[in-house]
């Protein structure tokens, strides 16, 4: 009797908590989507009518086009660079023993354990000192460098987890069959690591796509979508900003679902073969 009561209480707490947290996570997201469809220019209740006008306005706004383009450039370059560098770091981390490995690990993971705004601030200090010597000004390239510093540890950890679960005898076998180092890497290691690499690509793209702190500090006068929205909030905004937010939500969610499908298919193939 007591047992039954106990397990019922446990179920209520557990399932309740997951439903409550999902609601909690989606309160601001749903709020933004609702406001993006609202008629009239004020972002407050009550809602008198629904319209797609703000989306139409969004596509005619040239500033937003520029911000969107910057976001795409930054996220794509940061994704590729951090995943590539992270792949090397992950292999060195999992596969090899060498002198100074602890130091190597600390350096490879360091930025992840650093508050993001402070990371942005210290890199800004550094770039300002550098630019007084080398004479460049902050812009999209400096923002990309900041993103790569921040994202590489994420990519490293994600790929390292995949690499740690890999059976080294498979590669040994390929080597015994006469494959050289490069062939082993390209035809055996890379396909086996693919699910991890893919997750790293997805994660780093989305984290860069939505990054505010680093872009805000390091992009100079250039704007990406997050910094564009931030400046909009400050100015007293119209539903065009919620509409912009909803568009980025839609893009992000699509990417994530497609990525998950590809990842699961790759994992299934790995299990079969």
């Amino acid at each position, binding site marked *: 009797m007591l*047992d039954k009561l106990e*397990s019922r209480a*446990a179920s209520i*707490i557990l399932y309740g*908590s*997951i439903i409550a*947290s999902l609601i*909690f*996570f*989606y*309160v601001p997201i749903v*709020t*933004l989507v609702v*406001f993006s469809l609202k008629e009239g220019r004020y*972002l*407050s*209740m009550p809602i008198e009518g629904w319209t797609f006008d703000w989306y139409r306005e969004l596509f005619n706004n040239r500033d937003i086009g520029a911000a969107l383009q910057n976001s795409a450039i930054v996220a794509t370059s940061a994704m590729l660079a951090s995943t590539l*560098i992270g792949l*090397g*770091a992950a292999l*060195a981390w999992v*596969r*090899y*023993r*060498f002198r100074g490995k602890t130091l*190597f690990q600390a*350096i*490879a993971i*360091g*930025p992840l*354990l650093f*508050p*993001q*705004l*402070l990371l942005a*601030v*210290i*890199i800004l*200090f*550094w770039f300002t000192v550098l630019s007084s010597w080398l004479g460049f000004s902050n812009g999209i390239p400096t923002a990309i*460098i900041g993103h*790569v*510093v921040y994202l*590489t540890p994420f990519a*490293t950890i994600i790929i390292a987890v995949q690499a740690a679960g890999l059976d*080294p005898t498979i590669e*040994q076998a390929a080597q015994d069959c006469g494959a050289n*180092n490069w062939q*082993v890497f390209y035809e055996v290691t890379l396909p086996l690591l693919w699910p991890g690499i893919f997750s790293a690509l997805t994660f780093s793209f989305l984290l860069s796509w*939505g990054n*505010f*702190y680093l872009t805000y500090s390091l992009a100079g006068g250039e704007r990406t*979508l*997050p910094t564009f*929205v931030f400046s909009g909030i400050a100015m007293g905004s119209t539903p065009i*900003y919620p509409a912009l*937010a909803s568009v*980025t939500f839609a893009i*992000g969610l699509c990417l*994530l679902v497609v990525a998950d499908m590809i990842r699961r298919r790759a994992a299934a193939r790995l299990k079969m073969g």
Partner: protein
Amino acid sequence: MNASGPSSASRSIVALNALPVIVLQALFFIAPLVITVALSFQETRSFMLDWTWSLKTWTDVFSRGYYWTIMLRTLIMAALTVALCILIGFPVAYVLATRLKRWENHITILIVFAFLTDNVLKIFGWVLFLDRSGVANAVLHWIGLPSLPGWALFSPQATLLGMVYNYLCFTIFTIYLSVSMIDRDVIRAAYDCGAGKFRTFWEVTLPLSRNGIMAGGVLVFVLSLGSFLESKVLGGGKSPMAAELIRQTFETRINWPLGSALTVVVMVIAIVTILLFLRLIDLRKKDAP
């Protein structure tokens, strides 16, 4: 290619793999750290950086109560965030790891999506939700309840809400990992010995997931020391935290040495926390048979 004795061929492979990340972080993470520490020992003259070594900034930092009030507030907010993230995150992670096999993937995607979505947008969404003429009050009126209290927005409570919201995922992920690594047989053994659900939870599951709880806690603590958007937008900028103070010192007051000194203070707090955590894990390893 194996992990034991590196031959000369594999040494060049190690270098090829490890070098890019070392170069990247040495140039753009370690060098900035060094320059920040160096800057904190310089002086300013009429809003310009003056390269003369001095302790002026540091004596200033240590003698003014104002900075330490803000630092203390930041620490308290970070500690509260950690406590709430663990309390809320644990049951969620536990359900994800132990039950819900069918829905696990869908729920994980939903949580990951919320986590990866732009912070500015989500904070903006909270403002629209909590505002006096926002969604929350409209819903409350509709079901006939009184409106939200005045402190629901532009207050420390709202800042805390934003921080918990932004960092909750970290505790969910780390606790999820450690709970899913617990051997189910250990829990079954506890049941067989007659322990009830709650007793098993307290005496078996909870202690075994301690590493995940602590790792999540440290991560949230360190990251929330840098909270800026939450206190600026949701908190209304009325009770600034360390990160906002640091931004102000070189944006509006253009005092770089002061900004770097305050950055160093926050960094030292973060590093000491991480080292303490690693120490604790080490001790526990030694205790284990």
